[in-house]
């Protein structure tokens, strides 16, 4: 089945997310759609899938013009989609999820679960997915959930499979498995549209590459193209893919954490007896697949979560901060970049200046007695906006009007402009454009070179390898190994999957 997108334009109000995009997907090819976050890839695919209606342009399948008024039509035409955020219902079983929408039934609309399970098993076995049709989705690891999504698409006879950022949530091993699955599917005649911003993966698996920037197609390439060439197409200029950093100059121990056990929201041990230390002038990366306790550990260090048991002990510059309140922890010199800037990093309805003083709202350079020193705030905000390269009309602009990268720069500016001896940066560049990533990385390195201790929590292996001086890999709430940054991806991947040497 040949799929053609002709002149697709999609606008949201004044913003043009896709502009005059042409794309041809040949039968049985793996076509990578490469672009930064926010380039308009997902919008384009949602148009293809019937979730959005295009303002201009149309879709053709085997030369026949299509009119999709909803995902049902797209599916009927043979398009399957694996969304970035899985479209699975956590409290349903695998079989129920796969069957949903085209359920096999017996008399009176009673679901034929046996038939549904059989279908899951059949596809699962054909591609070696190893999925239990009776398992509840919420009990499955993300890799398995993704395979369920693929089964879901295949069970509807999808001839074209769209995978939207499929590797974002996977371990390197799971990523390799997924690529193998993609090759297998392509061999059996399914076309695959692979949406990603990760160059390494594109080069490994794609037959053809189309690069999208700012909602437009800016070029296409073969997978044997140079990485730097692809990157510059993607960003529109030359980028430094590696970060220049001097060797670490180690200072005194800044943070000592011993025997830390923390429960998550479901009262299960998210962090299980973890101990580590960080010195001034070094970046310790906490690597690992998301959901292995990194988030809870960061929240614990900040004082948002209480430790379990009495053995836990945290010292900051020799002073104990275990069980201290968040305010006390912040005052003792900890800066924190939370992993979700939208919900935890910023008050999106506040202006940049207001956001910059969020954690220094008392007895600080922003205040005068019990009042806000508006003149000082204005001046400081203006300085910080310049210093941290926040692209905004003014410091009085409301935060949610900024792009993700600029929002994150505001958070970074707030945390690094205070007197801190420890910076905890949790997923500092998630959903951020390449330009801002570069800038934020430089700031983190600068903080380290200024003798601060940095804990970097990231699920992006590239980021970890570029920045870290030491890498601690977390798996199921434990640190399964602390390794040097020159460790190979394969070895790190094994650690992230819990395989210890």
């Amino acid at each position: 089945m040949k799929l053609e997108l002709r002149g697709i334009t999609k606008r949201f109000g004044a913003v043009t997310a896709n502009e005059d995009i042409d794309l041809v997907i040949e039968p049985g090819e793996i076509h990578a759609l490469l672009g930064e976050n926010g380039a308009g890839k997902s919008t384009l695919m949602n148009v293809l899938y019937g979730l959005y209606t295009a303002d201009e342009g149309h879709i053709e399948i085997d030369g026949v013009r299509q009119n999709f008024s909803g995902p049902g039509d797209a599916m009927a035409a043979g398009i399957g989609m694996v969304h970035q955020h899985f479209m699975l219902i956590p409290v349903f079983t695998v079989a129920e999820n796969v069957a949903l929408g085209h359920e096999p039934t017996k008399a009176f609309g009673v679901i034929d679960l046996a038939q549904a399970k059989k279908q899951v098993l059949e596809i699962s076995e054909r591609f070696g997915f190893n999925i239990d049709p009776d398992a509840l989705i919420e009990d499955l690891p993300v890799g398995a959930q993704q395979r369920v999504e693929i089964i879901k698409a295949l069970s509807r006879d999808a001839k074209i499979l769209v995978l939207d950022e499929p590797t974002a949530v996977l371990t390197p091993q799971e990523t390799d498995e997924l690529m193998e699955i993609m090759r297998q599917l392509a061999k059996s005649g399914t076309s695959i549209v692979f949406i990603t911003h990760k160059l390494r993966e594109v080069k490994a698996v794609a037959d053809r590459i189309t690069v999208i920037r700012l909602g437009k197609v800016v070029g296409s390439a073969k997978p044997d193209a140079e990485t730097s060439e692809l990157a510059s197409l993607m960003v529109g200029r030359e980028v430094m893919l590696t970060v220049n950093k001097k060797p670490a100059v180690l200072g005194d121990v800044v943070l000592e954490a011993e025997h830390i056990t923390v429960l998550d929201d479901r009262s299960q041990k998210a962090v299980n007896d973890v101990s580590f230390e960080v010195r001034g002038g070094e970046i310790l990366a906490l690597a690992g697949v998301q959901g292995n306790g990194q988030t809870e550990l960061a929240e614990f260090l900040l004082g948002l979560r209480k430790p379990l048991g009495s053995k836990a002990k945290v010292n900051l510059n020799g002073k104990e901060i275990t069980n201290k309140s968040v305010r006390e922890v912040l005052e003792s010199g900890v800066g924190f970049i939370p992993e979700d800037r939208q919900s935890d990093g910023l008050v999106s309805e506040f202006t940049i200046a207001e956001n910059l003083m969020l954690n220094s709202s008392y007895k600080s350079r922003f205040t005068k007695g019990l009042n806000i020193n508006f003149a000082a705030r204005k001046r400081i905000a203006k300085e910080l906006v310049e210093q941290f390269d926040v692209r905004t009309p003014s410091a009085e602009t409301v935060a949610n009007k900024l792009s993700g990268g600029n929002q994150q720069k505001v958070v970074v500016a707030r945390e690094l402009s205070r007197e801190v001896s420890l910076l905890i940066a949790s997923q500092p560049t998630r959903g951020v454009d390449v330009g801002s990533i570069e800038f934020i990385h430089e700031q983190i390195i600068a903080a380290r070179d200024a003798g601060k201790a940095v804990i970097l929590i990231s699920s992006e292996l590239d980021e970890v390898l570029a920045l870290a001086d030491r890498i601690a890999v977390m798996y199921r709430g434990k640190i399964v190994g602390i390794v040097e940054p020159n460790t190979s991806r394969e070895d790190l991947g094994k650690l992230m999957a819990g395989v210890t040497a």
Partner: protein
Amino acid sequence: MSTSKEIEVKVGLKSPIVMGSIGLLTLVFLGLLGRDGMVAFEISRRTDSLQLPTLDIDSSLLGVLSGLAMFALAAFSLSRAIKNLKTPIWVSIVFGAVGVTALLGWLAAEKSVPIAFIAGTALVLAVPIILGAMAGIMSERVGITNIAIEGQLLTGAFMAAVVSSITDNFLFGVIAAMVTSAFLSMILAIFSIKFLAQQIIVGVVLNVLVIGVTNFLYQQWLTEDAQNVNFPGTMDIIKIPVLSDIPLLGPVFFENRITVFLAILIVPTIWFILFKTRLGLRARAVGEHPLAADTVGINVGRTRFWWVTIGGSIAGLGGAALTIGNAGAFGREMSGGFGFIALAVVILGRWNPIYASLAALLFGFSIILRVWANQVSPGIPTDFITMVPYVVTIIAVVGFVGKSRPPKALAVPYVKG
């Protein structure tokens, strides 16, 4: 390669402590300090063809025995908790049953306990709550908060009384109640789905509206012309042959008005549709993750609309059960909070029709308990007695396995891109 999480749930000592304390209270107040005199538990009614002997026991002895039994259950719960195991549901249920028996025995010292009468009346009183809860479940399972159950019940009660009176036909009354209530629910559905209104506010407004309108019409019309428009009487009691002769079960379940029979049929039907059929799977999907349902071609808006509307018609039937199924005429604000109790029952029953109905029965029981306690032992503060079933409920809920988990997309409007 898998990252599935280990389940390490800590079982607290809540259940054994609560159970132990209640057992102690029972032992002391209903047993050792209890009332003397024999109490007779009547299994058969005097009118029954098949007569079973009554069970006689001394009231305070029953209290002591019950207290000890409750201690035993608490000890069992404790032994489970120490091994980090949950208290099974049956323990909670048995515990509740023992407690209630002790209470009944205490109240009826030197008298008798008409079990069939109490159970049967509890069922009749619970029917409006049960049906209201079904409306709540059908609505909330597809993701729409239904605060308007009270209004739906009241609408049904009013229409059933008036239309039955005017047409002199109960069937028309029931149909009118269901249809009008369904229309009322459509307002909730349309405002929630189409105009993305705050569902709780729409629900509250509907309640206030219905209370206002029915009060006005009651005052201006029904009281003026009661003979013609508010004198429907109650439907006949139907005895199902053979089945109604079974001791205890017969009089309770198989000798009732049609509204009760309908409720008994509707509850398992909704359960079956919800959990076994395609319709139900899709409805639950819409309530859990509407976007996922949309991406497999399920029309979210339409699904929500029909489930809310049909739920409304079932609440309308519940309203009819209040007037032509029990009281015999419409009275000012006669739903008297049943709709809100139904709301609580939905949550207590964890959005499951069967559990919710059991919870509703408990409320029915507490209503009849107050009336009966007043008759059998005048002078005992009945408000205090009425509290007891709720205390028992709380224990049952404390002991229940797992937390109550509402549909994920409850009260969240679905906006398509």
